[in-house]
């Protein structure tokens, strides 16, 4: 892995050069909510954030995506949409969110290849930014991940004081640095040591821990356990946890038409609402909130690991932070591990 340093004074130049070449998405402050948005100027970036409210999955797996357009009626026609083939960078993505994209890849590259997601994924360079101040409900370390891990990004920047320590983790990353090599300096051993210190400090801030040892097998044994009722009683059935989850990827597809034109759109869906599983016959296999709350946990900690050998949670803590009634996935999974089958 190539290692460099980027003096902080050069950051804005680095971003400007990227803006010249790519569509750049970065964390911005939108009415006190941090979101990843396309920026035209490095000044728009807000680096004073723990993590964005909505995960940057929405840049690749958009909340609303038009799959194709059509003219309705007997003389109807299908009009394919143009794929955005331009290069993109996501600047400031956190290591946990970058991992979530690697998790999403397994679905969108699975039985069917999804061109909408994969085109963007292929053209996107992830310029990660290490967490130096993880928040209260962060628990990426429970999955043996690190708030300063370069594993799932192309380039990782870590704030080590007056400069960023830069780890280049892929060919895409190498290419990017190569085109702007004037901005980077080679890293010294001391810089590397400093990064390790920053990383350790960040890890030490994380106090919450989710016990996941053997959770997949355990869940197989407690599907019918009354425990799930006790978890779900207080659930309001809103979609906050799933929409803000970086690994949730369920969607609905609908045709939206007027008299003269139409489009087939793909929209995020949420398993927390009853309509999600409502069948045309009127039958609903997940009729109660208990079924739905349980499904969220099973999908992440049982079905997904069985299918793809990875737990579909990265420990970003968003669902805990934003749940209106304090349904806390760390607590739920840890307690599920302790339930007597």
């Amino acid at each position, binding site marked *: 892995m190539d290692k460099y340093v980027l003096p902080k004074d050069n950051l804005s130049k680095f971003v400007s050069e990227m803006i010249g070449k790519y569509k750049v998405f970065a964390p911005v402050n939108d009415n006190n909510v941090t979101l990843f948005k396309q920026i035209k100027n490095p000044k728009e970036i807000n680096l004073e954030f723990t993590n964005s409210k909505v995960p940057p999955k929405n840049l690749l797996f958009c909340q609303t995506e038009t799959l194709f357009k059509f003219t309705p009626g007997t003389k109807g026609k299908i009009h394919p949409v143009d794929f955005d083939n331009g290069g993109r960078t996501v600047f400031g993505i956190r290591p946990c969110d970058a991992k979530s994209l690697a998790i999403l890849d397994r679905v969108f590259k699975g039985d069917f290849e999804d061109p909408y997601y994969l085109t963007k994924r292929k053209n996107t360079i992830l310029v990660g930014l290490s967490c130096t101040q993880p928040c209260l409900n962060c628990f990426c370390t429970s999955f043996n991940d690190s708030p300063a891990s370069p594993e799932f990004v192309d380039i990782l920047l870590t704030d080590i004081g007056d400069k960023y320590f830069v780890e280049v983790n892929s060919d895409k990353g190498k290419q990017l640095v190569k085109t702007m090599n004037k901005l980077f300096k080679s890293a010294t051993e001391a810089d590397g040591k400093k990064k390790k210190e920053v990383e350790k400090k960040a890890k030490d801030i994380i106090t919450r821990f989710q016990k996941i040892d053997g959770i997949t097998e355990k869940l197989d044994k407690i599907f019918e356990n009354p425990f799930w009722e006790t978890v779900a009683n207080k659930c*309001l059935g*809103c979609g906050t946890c799933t929409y803000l989850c970086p690994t949730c990827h369920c969607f609905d597809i609908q045709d939206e038409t007027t008299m003269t034109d139409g489009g087939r759109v793909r929209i*995020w869906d949420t398993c927390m609402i009853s309509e999600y599983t409502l069948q045309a016959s009127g039958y609903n296999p997940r009729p109660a909130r208990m079924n739905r709350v349980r499904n969220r946990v099973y999908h992440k900690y049982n079905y997904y690991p069985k299918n793809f050998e990875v737990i579909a949670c990265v420990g970003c803590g968003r669902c805990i932070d934003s749940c209106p009634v304090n349904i806390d996935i760390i607590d739920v999974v840890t307690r599920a591990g302790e339930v007597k089958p």
Partner: protein
Amino acid sequence: MVDEKQLRDAVKKTISRDDVKYVVGYEKGTSGFLVSPTFAFTPGDADKFIFSPLCVNNLAVYPMLEDKPPLRKGEEPDTRKIGLVVKGCDSRAIVQIIQEKGLKREDVVIIGIPCTGVIDPKKIKEKFPGQMKNVDVKEENEKFVITIDGKIHKISKDELLAEKCKHCEYPAPVLYDILIGKEIKSTKKEDYKEIEPLEKKSLEDKWDYWEKQFERCIRCYACRDACPLCYCKECMVDLLDPQWIRRSVNLSENTAWNLLRAFHLAGRCIGCGECERVCPMDLPLMKLNKKIEKDIKEMYDYTSGIDAEEKPLLAMFKPDDPEEFIL
């Protein structure tokens, strides 16, 4: 201060009744300042019940969230009551639902708490960030007393008080079966000062303001699901045939959703502020609700959720109702 022993005794007594299914109240949450709704099914469960200025949730939503699966042949419906711990505003939601015949009075056992104001979770999280251990919060002499790691912080109430409490005219439950503590009266008056700056804006600026807000909406419907008065069996946004609001998440559909919801709550919203509290995108939804509440108060001299015997605003007619808008 609420006597928690008295509260727990009341919960125990209520859940011990044969005609009560469960009691909903508050317990400590999983971190710092969080409290969580909790359910007592046995008298033993009552021991975890608490009440402190952190108990912001409106629990009146729970009777309306009850899953009612179709009955099997010969099965009788469970008609047992639900016990609820309520503050002033929460009790108004119950009254409003009873007015609308969403619930019958005998469906609920109301454990009322005279409330002197709750803390805005966002404000306290900002003031004391990163609190993992549960924090004890009390109210003493117009101050919130917060004990963190043995250190006592006394913060003026105004600094942390939830917006909805600042002008609350009904701090004591308007309807209850058991009251924990003594009746209290409000000295506050709702003057709608909060919405004045927005009211003064030009139509264009108003649109501009709301567009910037609605753009952020992710349509998770947490506003709807946390709202005790949003209890339609079929919500218009879930309907597919006809489809009133498209599933596409964009400014146009988001605006339609948020405005339709606000209008649907006209004369019904009791101002508990749950929609705004739970909104993950921080949409200032109470500004919409408060504006409508103000207009209704001025035009019809009507306040929602006060008297369970009264008819809902949109179900009654008075000969002297203003009619300027009728051509």
